[in-house]
C-alpha cells in the first residue's frame, strides 16, 4: 500500500503486533522485538524524567552565585545523579534499545533478532540495575560525580556508592547482551539478497555501536566491581595507603567511558543517515565511506581515552600521543558530516519534523565535535579542563547530537511503530522550541568555561551570574521542547491520522511492510534486489523520478499529506 496525498482515508491493518495478543503478561513476557522496544521506550522515558529532574535542580540552584537552594552536599548529589541517570540509563540504551530493537530485524528482512529471549532479559536486567540505582538515590544519594573517581568514592564518600555502583554494573550486562544480539543478528539473520553493502547505514551504525558495547562494557564492569570490592571488602587497588593507584581507576574507567560516548552518538548518526537521504530524496553520498567511518569511529574511539586524564601527571610523550589520536578520531566523524552535507546538495529537500531534527543535529554536532578538538589540544586543555567548556562540549554532542537523533528517529518511525502520524505543525514548533532552548542553555556555558567557571562547583563568582541565568532560562524552554513531543506522540499513537505503509516514502525494507508491522514482520521472506537509498530504481515508491542512474531530476517532496 502506498500513501497518497488525495483519496480515501487509510485504515490500520487488521492484525498487527500491537493487537496480536492482549494482557499484561503478553507484554511482560513477550519475545517480540517490537514490543520489547516499546517496553524500553517506557523505561528509558521514565529515567529521562528522573535525570531531567536532577538537571532542573542543578539549574535552579545555579541561578544565584551563592547557591541558596541546595547545600553543597546536596548539590554534589544532584549533578552526580543527573550524570549517572542520563549517561547509563538514558543515553546508552536510548536509540539502540528502542529504535535499534524495533527496526533492525525489519531493516534486514528477519522475523526477529537472533536471541529474542536474551533481548527480553536485557530489558529486565536494565530494570534491576535501574532499581538498585534508584534505591541508592533515595537512600543517601550519590555525590562522587558520575565518574566515581577514587579514593573519594571507595574510601571517603558517605553516600550510597556501593548500591549505585552495583546498579550500574548490572546495567552493563544489559548493554552487552543488546550488543551481542545485534552483532549476531546482522551476521546471521539477513534476508536473501541483503548483502553487507545493501544494509541501511542505520544497521551499520548499530553494528559499530555493538562492537563498542562488547569490547568496552566489560572493562567498566570490572572497574566498578573492583571499586565496590574496595569499598565493601577492603581490596586495595585504588587505595594509596596500600600502595594502590587512583590513576589506575581513571585509566580503567575511561577505557570504557570514552568509547561509551561513541555508543551514544553512533546510533544517532545512523538515524541521520536514514533521515537525510529520505528528506533530500537523494541517495546518500559516499555510502561506503560512511559505513567505514562508523567502524573507524568504533575502533579509533578506543585509542583516545587518556585525553580525559591530561592533568593527572602524564608524561609529555603520552599526552602528545593521545592528543594526536584524539585529533585522528575526529576525521571519520568529519567524513560523515561532509557526506551528509553532500547528500543535501542537489537534492529535493523537504522540511518535515525529522528533517528539522537532522538539520539541528548537523549544526550542533559540528559545534560539539569541533569544541572537542579544542579540548584535545594540550595547551588549551590545561585551561579549560574541568570547566563549563567541557560541560557545554559534551552536552552539544549528547543533547544537540544524540537526543536530536533520537527525537528525529522517533518522529520518523512513529508511523511505522504505531501506524499513525504525529501532528506535523505542532511537531515542527516543538522542534524549534527545543533547538532554541538548547542553545540558550548550553551556549552560555562555553563562555562560562572560557571565563574560568569550574564544573561541579555549587557557587561561582557574581560576574558569571548573567550566563548562568541565561542557561537556566534556556533550560526551561528546553524542558518544554521535550515535554511537547512526549505529549503529542502519545496522543498520536491513539488518535493520529492513519499513516499507511510508507508515508514519506522512504526506501528501507521496514517501509515495505504494513504499519504497524505483523508480529512476524513480513508475511513472506523478502528477497532484496535493490541498493540502499536508491530512489531511482524503486518504482514501488510512487515517486516522479526518472528511473536508472543519473541526476535526480524532479522528485516529489516527502509526504505532504497535511
Amino acid at each position, binding site marked *: 500500500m502506498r500513501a497518497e496525498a488525495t483519496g480515501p482515508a487509510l485504515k490500520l491493518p487488521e492484525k498487527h503486533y500491537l493487537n496480536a495478543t492482549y494482557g499484561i503478561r503478553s507484554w511482560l513476557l513477550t519475545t517480540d522485538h517490537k514490543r520489547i522496544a516499546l517496553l524500553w521506550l517506557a523505561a528509558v522515558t521514565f529515567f529521562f524524567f528522573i535525570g531531567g529532574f536532577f538537571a532542573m535542580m542543578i539549574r535552579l540552584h545555579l541561578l544565584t552565585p551563592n547557591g541558596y537552594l541546595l547545600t553543597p552536599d546536596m548539590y554534589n548529589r544532584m549533578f552526580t545523579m543527573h550524570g549517572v541517570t542520563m549517561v547509563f540509563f538514558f543515553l546508552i540504551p536510548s536509540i539502540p534499545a528502542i529504535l535499534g530493537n524495533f527496526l533492525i530485524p525489519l531493516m534486514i528482512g528477519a522475523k526477529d533478532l537472533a536471541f529474542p529471549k536474551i533481548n527480553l532479559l536485557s530489558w529486565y536486567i536494565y530494570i534491576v540495575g535501574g532499581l538498585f540505582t534508584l534505591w541508592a538515590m533515595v537512600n543517601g544519594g550519590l555525590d562522587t560525580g558520575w565518574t566515581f573517581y577514587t579514593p573519594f568514592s571507595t574510601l571517603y564518600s558517605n553516600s550510597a556508592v556501593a548500591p549505585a555502583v552495583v546498579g550500574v554494573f548490572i546495567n552493563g550486562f544489559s548493554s552487552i547482551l543488546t550488543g551481542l544480539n545485534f552483532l549476531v543478528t546482522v*551476521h546471521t539473520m539477513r534476508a536473501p539478497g541483503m548483502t553487507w553493502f545493501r544494509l541501511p547505514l542505520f544497521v551499520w551504525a548499530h553494528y559499530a555501536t555493538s562492537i563498542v558495547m562488547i*569490547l568496552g562494557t566489560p*572493562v567498566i564492569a570490572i572497574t566498578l566491581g573492583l571499586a565496590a570490592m574496595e569499598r565493601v571488602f577492603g581490596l586495595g587497588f585504588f587505595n594509596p595507603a596500600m*600502595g594502590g593507584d587512583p*590513576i*589506575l581507576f581513571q*585509566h*580503567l574507567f575511561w*577505557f570504557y567511558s570514552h568509547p561509551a560516548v561513541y555508543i551514544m552518538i553512533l546510533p544517532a548518526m545512523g538515524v541521520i543517515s536514514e533521515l537525510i537521504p529520505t528528506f533530500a530524496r537523494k541517495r546518500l553520498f559516499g555510502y561506503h565511506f560512511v559505513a567505514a567511518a562508523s567502524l573507524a569511529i568504533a575502533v579509533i574511539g*578506543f*585509542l583516545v581515552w*587518556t585525553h580525559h*586524564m591530561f592533568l593527572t*601527571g*602524564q*608524561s*609529555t*610523550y*603520552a599526552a602528545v*600521543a593521545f592528543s594526536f589520536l584524539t585529533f585522528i578520531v575526529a576525521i571519520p566523524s568529519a567524513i560523515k558530516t561532509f557526506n551528509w552535507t553532500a547528500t543535501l546538495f542537489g537534492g529535493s529537500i523537504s522540511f518535515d519534523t525529522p528533517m528539522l531534527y537532522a538539520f539541528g543535529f548537523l549544526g550542533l554536532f559540528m559545534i560539539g565535535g569541533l569544541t572537542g578538538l579544542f579540548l584535545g589540544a594540550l595547551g588549551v586543555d590545561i585551561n579549560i579542563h574541568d570547566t563549563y567548556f567541557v560541560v557545554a562540549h559534551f552536552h552539544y554532542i549528547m543533547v544537540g547530537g544524540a537526543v536530536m537523533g533520537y527525537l528525529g528517529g522517533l518522529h520518523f518511525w512513529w508511523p511505522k511503530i504505531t501506524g499513525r502520524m504525529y501532528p506535523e505543525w505542532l511537531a515542527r514548533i516543538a522542534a524549534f522550541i527545543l533547538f532554541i532552548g538548547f542553545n540558550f542553555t548550553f551556549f552560555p556555558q562555553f563562555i562560562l568555561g572560557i571565563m574560568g567557571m569550574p564544573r561541579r562547583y555549587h557557587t561561582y563568582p557574581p560576574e558569571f551570574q548573567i550566563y548562568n541565568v541565561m542557561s537556566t532560562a534556556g533550560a526551561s524552554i528546553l524542558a518544554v521542547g521535550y515535554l511537547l513531543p512526549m505529549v503529542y506522540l502519545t496522543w498520536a499513537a491513539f488518535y493520529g491520522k492513519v499513516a499507511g505503509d510508507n508515508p514519506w516514502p522512504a526506501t528501507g525494507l521496514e517501509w515495505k511492510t504494513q504499519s504497524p508491522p505483523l508480529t512476524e514482520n513480513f508475511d513472506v521472506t523478502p528477497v532484496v534486489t535493490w541498493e540502499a537509498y536508491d530512489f531511482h530504481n524503486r518504482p514501488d515508491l510512487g515517486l516522479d523520478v526518472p528511473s536508472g542512474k543519473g541526476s535526480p531530476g524532479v522528485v516529489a517532496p516527502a509526504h505532504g499529506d497535511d
Partner: protein
Amino acid sequence: MSEQEHTEHIVSPGTYLAIILTLLALTGITVFAAFVNLGRFNIVVALLIATVKATLVVLIFMHAKYAPERTKLVIIAGIFWLALLLFMTLSDYASRVDYRGVRYPMTQIISHTLGNRG
C-alpha cells in the same frame, strides 16, 4: 544429517588425549622453570608457556582451528583489544618519569635519548 558433517569437523579422542598430555607436560615445565633463576625472564617464560597452553585449548578443545573465518576474527579481535588495554595503559605508567620511585625501563631509554628533559 549429512549437511552437519561437512560443516562440523569432529576431532578424534586421540587428538584430545595428545593435547591434554601436552598441556600437563607444559604445566610441569612451567613449575620447573619457576625454580630456575632467570631473573626478569622468569615471567616471560611463564607467560609464553601459558600462551602456548591457551593456544592449544583454543585451537583444538574449542575447535577454533576448524571454525569459520568469522570466529577466528572474533578471537583475534578479543586478543587485540586486551593487548590495547594492557599496552596503552602501561605506556602511560612507563613514560612517567618517576612512578612511585620505580623507574620503568622505557623511561630510562627515553630520558637517556633525550637528555633527561622528560
